[in-house]
């Protein structure tokens, strides 16, 4: 079976453009309506955040969104229901869950993989499961054809990149800067060079995120990557202005990414 990732990134290559990845936090605002509107607003891939009490890789915007979601009663099971509702209406857009190890560990690696697959999820980004620790989840997901999406960062050197590449699936998430989510983007030239290295080492599309907030930054990063992720800015727009404000922002950001000329790669 061809994965939604393969199909999506092949389409983006054919269109000679980078993709746009929208991150939203499950349970912060009207997530069902927001998810439903994202493909139409130009999101090529969607990341659905799983809230956790102790999100040590996240900046203030996503931390607070997670706290609000938990206060509102969101949990892993309900987030999977949101994924399922999304998948029922959108057959083609890849959906990735992004979260931390403990809620998934507590759910049970195998049960989680089964339920995520049944909900139509395509991959998992587990921030605090580096390659050394992700085997139980990777094996559980592989049994259902789902991928563990690995992260690469500016601290990932050539040697380390081999470790990241081995067992990686779907795409690689390149964290553009050393810092937490929303911290600010690394220099575009550095990012583009790093993306090329990661792509070569892994043979996978490279998606860039952490700190892309504006249309200008998104367009700049789009030139040298396979897709651009925006999280904190969408989460903030959703909280400050509501679902429609978040959708409008996604429209603007995805248009900027679509309009960006791609560097030869």
């Amino acid at each position: 079976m061809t994965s939604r990732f393969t199909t999506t990134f092949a389409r983006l290559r054919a269109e000679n453009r980078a993709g746009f990845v929208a991150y939203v936090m499950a349970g912060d605002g009207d997530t069902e309506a927001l998810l439903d509107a994202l493909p139409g607003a130009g999101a090529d891939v969607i990341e659905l955040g799983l809230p956790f009490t102790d999100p040590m890789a996240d900046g203030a915007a996503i931390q607070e969104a997670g706290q609000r979601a938990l206060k509102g009663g969101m949990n892993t099971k309900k987030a999977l229901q949101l994924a399922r509702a999304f998948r029922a209406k959108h057959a083609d857009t890849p959906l990735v869950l992004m979260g931390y190890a403990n809620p998934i560990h507590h759910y049970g690696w195998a049960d989680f993989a089964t339920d995520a697959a049944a909900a139509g999820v395509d991959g998992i980004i587990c921030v605090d499961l580096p390659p050394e620790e992700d085997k139980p989840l990777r094996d559980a997901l592989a049994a259902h054809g789902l991928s563990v999406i690995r992260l690469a960062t500016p601290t990932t050197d050539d040697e380390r990149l081999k470790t990241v590449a081995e067992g990686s699936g779907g795409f690689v998430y390149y964290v553009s800067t050393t810092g937490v989510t929303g911290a600010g983007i690394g220099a575009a030239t550095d990012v583009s060079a790093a993306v090329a290295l990661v792509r070569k080492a892994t043979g996978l599309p490279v998606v860039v995120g952490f700190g892309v907030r504006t249309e200008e930054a998104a367009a700049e990063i789009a030139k040298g990557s396979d897709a651009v992720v925006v999280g904190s800015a969408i989460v903030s727009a959703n909280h400050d202005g509501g679902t429609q404000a978040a959708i409008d922002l996604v429209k603007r950001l995805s248009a900027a990414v679509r309009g960006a000329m791609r560097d030869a790669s």
Partner: protein
Amino acid sequence: MNSRPNAFSQWPDAQGRFGDYGGRFVAETLMPNILRLEKAYEAAKSDPEFKAELDEFARDFVGRPSPLYFAERLTEEFGGADIWFKRDELNHTGAHKINNCLGQVLLAKRMGATRIIAETGAGQHGVATATVAARFGLPCIVYMGATDIERQKPNVFRMKLLGAEVVPVTSGTGTLKDAMNEALRDWVTHVKDTFYVIGTVAGPHPYPAMVRDFQSVIGREARAQMLDRIGKLPDAAVACIGGGSNAMGLFHPFLEDESVRLIGVEAAGKGIETGEHAASLNGGEPGILHGNRTYLLQDADGQIIDAHSISAGLDYPGIGPEHAFLHDAGRAEYLSATDEEALEMFQLCAKLEGIIPALEPAHALARVRDLASELGKGKTILMNMCGRGDKDVFAVAEHLGVGL
């Protein structure tokens, strides 16, 4: 030294695992740092120069070795086994914490770090880190929950006197676990020049093993002192447990001494049955937090639950992975003591021994009382008096309804 391949003292394995616990559960950004730290620590450990420097500062700056003391009047009061205190509360800065800070800051210096960060709950680890950083002229940033800053003003001022910057943490619930999250966020942001001094035997490998090694001076000294003073090993070694660094430091040199019962005392807060406690082993279950797999206080969705204890030093929802391992393996026993019991022992120890214990070891003393009767006369209990109670007098006065 025992060198059986499966001996309790031989852990962790190459992956930083103590059986099913431990590991390296951190964001990818930190992995290269963690691996570099592991290498640097391995090299330092077998370098006689590093050891000589550590020993010299432990002696002249910290005041080691700490004495072994026969608590004669408490022994009489409890009416059973002889009770001995390892006096780590006499260390510079008033607790065992500095043993570890000294080791880590010397390692940071060796690795060329130019910036020290730490998390703190009650402020004891923050003060100890700020103290050693001051001595070596390194800038020090301490993350501390906003709630704890309010409760521990004297320690905040001490850290500032020592030149440290104290950063209030308002994220999450503004307590120790959030301070640790914030320190990890700082580290992710400043990976190149920063050394993170973790205060307990938790976190990603190599921290649990490294902190244990630096704290093992407690057990090594105490073991030799017991043999010297009474010509035999104690029948039980007892310590309180938050993250578990003083207990691990006491236990480790006794792990292969099968005759020595090892007993950790967790904080039962208002009682484990109330849900308001800090007893991860007695009231939690295995999970993943702050870089390691261990027992955690968590809800049905795997969300972390806030710990509660009268003692801010025990107020942490996890426990070092080596304790989780020793618990499951049955090598150590883990009991608990409530806030009320700790308050009672705090006062009793002050009146009978002329030692005001910190609220943390006051928890241990509550179980020493039971154990003294259980073991009976002629037996010996060694307890680590891991901190002095000066920092707690305001909190205790408040609990007792005394205005100061």
